[in-house]
């Protein structure tokens, strides 16, 4: 084992796990550096200020986090976990948890997660996406569903009530689109990828009643997918420039810079939109659950224990301790204090008086309401990234005009899905 990933755990730590003693009171004895591969998160950056706390808790181990943006992080974790296994802890997400779990690249989390850290306190939706094949694989660092976020001032000026249905939403987007005044009706994601354009398209697909597979037979190539794509392409006519090949950053950037009237995005957008430090439209923002029949895109990102770098049980236990500490109530309370809305995952924190004091009762209510329509929109399979990314390319071609026949694109995806299923057997 290399110096960097040398993790020596003591019997005392094993006792700690088995007896469930208070983790703060009894220090485990890990050593070396726990290497973490993650994507940039304010909550993880904040953790680095408390390295000494973890060192004390673990009995001497430190940690080092390497950051890569989402797409690069996905590629690098896959490459590392399947080859050399340099990292003790991986940041994984709902889209690839099935792949990581079925390939044996990560360990079942609950086998090494100290009970005192109360995993059950995490938001039930996030627990659901962290679970595959009946086992929990990661502890959430971010997650949630979707919210429709809108500019109250623009809607009021146009005499439009916040839309409750998709038809109302489409009509409002068209009416609010005023490019000559630098305001665009909406901002979507056009960039290819299962976590990019496909992610935003799926609420339409599932909302119209679409399904990916029936057993091992693809069934997505139907009228629901065609209608979803037509609606998505229709809305793209009113989407901010740059979003045609942009992802989350471009859509959110266009909204927070005041150039978009309304959009449906993942819940962390609200935290950014109402924060004057990151938004020009703070104070003018309203939020509601997505208009019916759209489903919210349930998602969750979190920390998982790598199998290759943690060769023995003691190393896995140390990595488990790090994951538990990093996602603990104490650290979430620090994130709340630091205004990191998108990094909050625990029910106890989101229902705390401090949360209500900081964000008001409206946001809490909106989150509770959107939870009712939040769903797992993607195909929960190790092959999902492959299928989702392929549809992402076809969808981007449709958005940018390289192709125009929706049915032909879906037929191509259908053939690809059949090959994919055959290859996996």
């Amino acid at each position, binding site marked *: 084992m290399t110096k960097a990933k040398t993790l020596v755990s003591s019997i005392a730590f094993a006792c700690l796990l088995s007896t469930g003693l208070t983790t703060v009171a009894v220090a485990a004895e890990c050593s070396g550096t726990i290497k973490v591969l993650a994507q940039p998160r304010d909550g993880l950056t904040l953790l680095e200020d408390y390295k000494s706390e973890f060192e004390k808790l673990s009995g001497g181990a430190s940690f080092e986090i390497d950051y890569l943006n989402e*797409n690069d992080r*996905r*590629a*690098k974790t*896959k*490459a590392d976990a*399947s*080859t050399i296994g340099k990292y003790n802890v991986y940041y994984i997400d709902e889209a690839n948890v099935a*792949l990581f779990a*079925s*390939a044996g690249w990560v360990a079942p989390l609950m086998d090494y997660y100290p009970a005192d850290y109360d995993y059950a306190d995490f938001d039930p939706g996030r627990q659901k996406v962290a679970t595959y094949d009946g086992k929990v694989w990661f502890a959430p660092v971010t997650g949630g569903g979707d919210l429709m976020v809108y500019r109250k001032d623009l809607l009021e000026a146009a005499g439009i009530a916040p839309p409750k249905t998709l038809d109302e939403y489409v009509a409002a987007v068209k009416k609010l689109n005023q*490019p*000559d005044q630098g305001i665009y009706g909406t901002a979507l994601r*056009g*960039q*290819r990828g299962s976590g990019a354009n496909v992610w935003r398209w799926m609420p339409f697909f599932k909302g119209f009643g679409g399904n990916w597979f029936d057993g091992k037979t693809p069934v997505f190539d139907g009228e629901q997918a065609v209608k979803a794509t037509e609606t998505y392409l229709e809305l793209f006519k009113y989407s*901010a*420039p*740059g979003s*045609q*090949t942009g992802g989350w950053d471009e859509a959110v950037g*266009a909204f927070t*810079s005041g*150039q978009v009237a309304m959009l449906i995005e993942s819940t962390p957008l609200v935290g950014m939109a109402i924060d004057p430090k990151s938004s020009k439209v703070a104070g003018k923002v309203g939020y509601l659950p997505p208009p019916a029949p759209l489903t919210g895109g349930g998602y969750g990102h979190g920390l998982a224990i790598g199998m290759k770098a943690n060769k023995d049980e003691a190393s896995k236990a140390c990595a488990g301790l790090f994951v538990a500490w990093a996602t603990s109530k104490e650290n979430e309370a620090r994130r709340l204090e630091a205004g990191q809305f998108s990094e909050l995952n625990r029910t106890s924190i989101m229902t705390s008086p401090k949360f209500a004091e900081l964000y008001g009762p409206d946001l809490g209510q909106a989150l509770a309401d959107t939870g009712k329509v939040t769903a797992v929109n993607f195909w929960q399979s*190790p092959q999902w*990234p*492959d299928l989702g*990314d*392929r549809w992402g*390319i*076809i969808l*981007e*071609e449709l*958005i*940018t*005009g*390289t*192709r125009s026949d929706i049915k032909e694109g879906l037929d191509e995806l259908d053939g690809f899905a059949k090959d994919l299923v055959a*290859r996996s057997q």
Partner: protein
Amino acid sequence: MSQKNSLPAVFLTPAMGILAVLALVPTAYAIYISFQNRELSRPDGSLVGFANYIDLFSDRRFINAIGVSLTWEAVTVGMTLLIAVGLGILLFECVSPRTRNLLALLFLVPVILPRVSAAFVWKFAFHPLYGIATYPYKAITGQPLDLLSNPATALATVALVDVWQWGLFFAVIVLKLLETLPPQPFEAAKLDHARTWEIYAFIALPMLKAPLISLAFVKMIESLRAFDLIYVMTRGGPGIATETLDMYAFSQGFIESGRISYASSMAVLMMIATSIAFTFIWKRVQ
């Protein structure tokens, strides 16, 4: 005498040995796994013969990637040399030696910038809403200009950044080459009333034929490694409009499928194609 003759071998053997290990082992391994059906999530693959190679030729993304790669090579190599020669001559003709040195220093800056940094800077510069490069168009027409989202302009826009980095650098090299040429042929041509363009077309450039061919080869090899620029600026999009062969191989290997055998078969074909093409061009040039 025999001691004298063995000295080069003594010095060369370790270096060649290391080179052989570093170059041949991965190459041999890539060829080996290209005949398997290995995937990252299933490392226990089996031999499938030429199945991956056969599949490639019915894969529309692969066919598209060949076209994009060839276009990329032709555009970036051609434009870089054109800019380099044009700008080099312009500097040599119109600018004083002192100013030339100052400009040469400035022209070196783009190529010193790390490729990824340059790609991010230009990606932001081309942003339709906030980009400085698209601002004049927006100010004049009132319409945003989204060059990187348009399949017709995306590849040319990325190529522009490549040419900006390498064209200016090569212009400095051409300038310095022109400065090293003997003045007599130029003076003789002027006495014969040759026009300026004739002097360069028929005297200077033929005299620089060998170094210019070397520059072309350097750029051809460099253009094959444009992965980082394209990855940052377009990720192969919109759709697959800027997806080169290396980009597609990486996507298949690590981003989308984890099909490392399939990706390796692409890499092997690329290796064979480039080896043949470069050997052919090299022999033609000689």
